[in-house]
């Protein structure tokens, strides 16, 4: 059984814990063992925190990597933001000894073990596609109900593609393939692949601008007949879920892929934590 350090981040465990319980159940069903990373913190967020001070951002991220290093595991995340920070910082520190030295000096002073540069960071969609396999997902899926889904990749799962090298950043397919394996139809829609609007500190600083971007995406999803939005990031999830409540229109339910798979695998519905969603989920 493959074993990973499960990186929780902030939004999932604190605002959408149903994503966490679904992920734990779904991964268990697929034979992926998740171990808690005791004492982990915020990744820290690649948009806001990196904007303020890149040295601090990198050092806090490196402390999180050291936790996985001690456990002897690679990191698994279900969030594009956590993925971006941890992947990018690991990439930098694993390849650039000078930078690693600089960060290790800070870690040492803070009483943290040295980062040795061997931890890999995985996004769960990529893990499902490459390691677990689409067929294994299909075999477990009992009911997808043939719903039409707008699949939202978000930005930081695939981009920047020069270092992530996961799928074609302009015309990706791996997330759609998993959704379809769960018995759900992924519908094409205009400007698919566009940012939800929340990233880079825009949601915190100018929420009206973020919401305008969200609304344009929602219009395109609705025009394509989407009955559900499927995301792979709790921050995009929050933006679509809370955004529709704020806009008081659309009403398209939002599911994180872990919740969609939980549903398709026939998990106890109470385990999906859907009651905290601000846009009602009646699927």
């Amino acid at each position, binding site marked *: 059984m493959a074993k990973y350090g499960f990186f929780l981040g902030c939004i999932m465990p604190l605002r959408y814990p149903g994503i966490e319980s679904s992920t734990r159940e779904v991964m268990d069903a697929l034979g992926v063992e998740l171990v808690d990373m*005791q004492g982990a913190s*915020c990744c820290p*967020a690649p948009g806001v925190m990196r904007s303020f001070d890149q040295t*601090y951002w990198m050092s806090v991220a490196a402390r999180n990597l050291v936790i996985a290093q001690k456990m002897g595991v690679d990191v698994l995340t279900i969030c594009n933001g956590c993925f971006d920070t941890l992947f990018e910082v690991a990439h930098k520190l694993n390849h650039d000894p000078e930078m690693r030295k600089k960060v290790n000096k800070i870690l040492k002073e803070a009483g943290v073990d040295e980062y040795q540069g061997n931890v890999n960071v995985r996004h769960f969609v990529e893990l499902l596609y490459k390691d677990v396999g689409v067929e294994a997902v299909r075999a477990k899926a009992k009911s997808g109900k043939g719903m039409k889904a707008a699949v939202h990749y978000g930005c930081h799962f695939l981009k920047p593609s020069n270092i992530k090298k996961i799928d074609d*950043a302009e015309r990706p397919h791996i997330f759609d393939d998993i959704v379809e394996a769960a018995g759900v139809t992924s519908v094409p829609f205009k400007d698919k692949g566009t*940012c939800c609007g929340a990233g880079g500190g825009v949601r915190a600083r100018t929420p009206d601008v973020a919401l305008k971007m969200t609304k344009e995406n929602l219009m395109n999803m609705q025009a394509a007949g989407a009955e559900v939005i499927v995301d792979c990031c709790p921050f995009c999830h929050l933006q679509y879920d809370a955004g529709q409540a704020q806009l008081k229109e659309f009403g398209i339910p939002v599911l994180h892929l872990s919740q969609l798979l939980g549903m398709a695998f026939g998990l106890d519905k109470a385990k999906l934590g859907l009651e905290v969603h601000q846009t009602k989920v009646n699927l």
Partner: protein
Amino acid sequence: MAEAKEPNPEFTRKVVEAGGKTVNLCFQCGTCTGSCPSGRQTAFRVRKLVRRAQLGFEEDVLPSDDLWLCTTCFTCYERCPRGVEIVDIIMALRNMAVRKGYMAEPHRKVAELISKTGHLVSLRDEDKALRGRLGLQNTPPTVFSDPKALEQVKKIGEICGFDKLIAGGK
């Protein structure tokens, strides 16, 4: 006749050193602006931002709201025909702006939250209760349940001067 602003290569050099090493490769084609979801909703034009950084127009760039309208979606970065690492340039500029004291209040709040608690989101009683109902540990197994780990995160903030940085803005 209008007076032309003088370029300031000194500032451009600082941008390059802070991580914007590709800034001089830009040839102003506008592919970035045409790809930008934020520019579609606002007057933010990323091509202009890159040009201003290239010419070293510090006073046009660091105090500007435009600098903060980028969602870091990387679309422009992916499509730029000159390989300009636009998001890295924006990050370098934002770090410089924050050092000059340009930090919006909501951002300061977010920064304070992480430097004090190690997380960007608070842990409320209702969150604990819901986690319990879902069969999860009420308090997540993170810095929230590990005071020693939180001390380390705080110490990193001290060493990097992060607390001072976020207290020092206007």
